[in-house]
């Protein structure tokens, strides 16, 4: 069987039309601009960023690895250098992509592809609880828990996950609006409930062979009272 290609081979002609030349030039400009936009968007690794347990754990692993390869910096020195290098890289990229950003915003196009760049060992799990008079708090939803799966398909939907998975310690306006909506839905489903709590519980993933860390901390919690929700 002949496996050689049958099409897509360049012609042997030596001249092209002006239209083809202009098109090739424009495509070259587009490709160049996209490569500029694709420069990895390194975020400055500052002391403040390293307050997150996940980021600190990641930094320590890199420091341990580099120490083993002969680096003589202390952890503080390493953080200082990391801050300098990443802040510089961030500034350079920002300056390079600045002229291209308006077009990117209008068309919603960019080239930042940090897919699972640094998997976190401190992920969060969404939980929803309701409070009923005399009954206390009880779960109605806990991610990946079949016993508490009310509205599971909504919470798992990718666009909704974008709101709660990226939640910061202090909930922003979209997350607050999301929590109010969840509360309204839960109040409708549970007429006796007087409060709804939406929580992001932080877990610690350990590797096989390492001791398990059962500690779970509440990273974000929004409590909504029934009388806060408009009827």
């Amino acid at each position: 069987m002949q496996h050689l290609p049958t099409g897509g081979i360049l012609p042997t002609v030596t001249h092209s039309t002006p239209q083809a030349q202009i098109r090739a030039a424009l495509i070259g400009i587009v490709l160049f601009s996209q490569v500029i936009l694709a420069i990895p968007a390194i975020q400055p690794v500052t002391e403040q960023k390293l307050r997150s347990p996940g980021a600190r754990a990641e930094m320590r692993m890199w420091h341990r690895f580099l120490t083993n390869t002969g680096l003589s910096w202390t952890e503080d020195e390493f953080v200082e250098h990391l801050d300098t290098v990443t802040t510089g890289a961030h500034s350079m990229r920002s300056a390079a992509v600045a002229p291209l950003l308006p077009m990117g915003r209008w068309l919603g196009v960019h080239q930042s592809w940090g897919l699972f760049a640094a998997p976190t060992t401190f992920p969060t799990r969404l939980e929803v609880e309701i409070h009923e008079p005399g009954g206390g708090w009880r779960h109605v939803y806990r991610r990946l828990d079949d016993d508490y799966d009310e509205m599971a398909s909504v919470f798992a939907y990718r666009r909704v996950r974008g709101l709660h998975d990226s939640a910061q310690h202090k909930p922003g306006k979209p997350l607050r609006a999301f929590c109010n909506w969840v509360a309204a839905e839960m109040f409708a489903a549970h007429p006796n409930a007087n409060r709804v709590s939406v929580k992001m519980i932080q877990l610690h993933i350990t590797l096989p062979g390492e001791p398990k860390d059962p500690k779970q901390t509440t990273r974000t919690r929004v409590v909504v009272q029934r009388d806060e929700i408009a009827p």
Partner: protein
Amino acid sequence: MISRRWQRWVQIWDLKETGHAMAMIRIAMGLAVVFDYATVGTLGLVPQLYGDASLGGWSGYLGRRTPPAWALLPDALADGWLLWGMLLAAGICITIGFYTRTAFLLFVLLSAQHAQILSPADRGIDTIIRNVFLILACSGAGLVWSVDAKWITGKWAGDNRLLPAWPRHLIVCQLVLIYTLAGISKFGIQWMPWGGHTALYTILQDPAVAFANFDWIENQPWFFFTQVGTAVTMAWEWSSSLLLLVFYFRFSAEQPGKLRAFSNRYRLQYIWASVGVIFHIGIAAMMQLGIFPWAMLATYFCVIHPDDLPAWVTGSAKPASPVPAGRPQTAP
């Protein structure tokens, strides 16, 4: 030398082919988009994701700086149904190839507006879809297997006319950028050999993205498989830039060279794509990322040269000449 290289560059972007591969991307990605917007509707999330905060929307943007669509149609777009409906309609038009170019452009502009309104709900795959649709808006993707084809040629499948191949090649460049950058950006030590290749294990323990509870993969041999998966992911993403070389080898198939001959003989682009198909099916089976794996797989049709498709797909014999005058009829 520069003149010769420029000439080759011009020739690469001047190649022509039938529109079957681009139509495959259009239909597959269109289906993913329609499924996604239909999901929003069935989950009852239209006002929340697309509407104004005063009407129950989750947007933190409206009220701070009004996006252009809202400045033009403030009342009509307030509850989100019109925006969502137009996006769904554009997705359907793209899939069936009805006013295809207009539908591509409309979808990109409206989807970009939504990205501004509620950016946390606009994911990476939404950007990829916009990038690809913007390229396809400049292509003849709507002239094959479409309503437009029926109108223009009298046949649903079109008339096998030759169209510019550069949009497909540009999507190949987009794929290469995505995977190469995704590989370079993976600075987390868990992706590295000295981090134990534990990234995939860690991701599958993250309840936000895991499809199910994967506690059991801490046991062997499953943990080992996750390490192999991590290593293969890195190697595959880092090597994806070689796809450009494979394509260049095809463009220049008449030139000598053992590597070129090897690449063309074994069609390495299809081997690379096969690994990607397995990779994304694995993601679909193990992670809950919505349409991400399926929309990504839709772009894979870009590695297919229409001449490589069997006659039962294209519905006819190969076109007489896939490139302008002067092109050799067949490969050596």
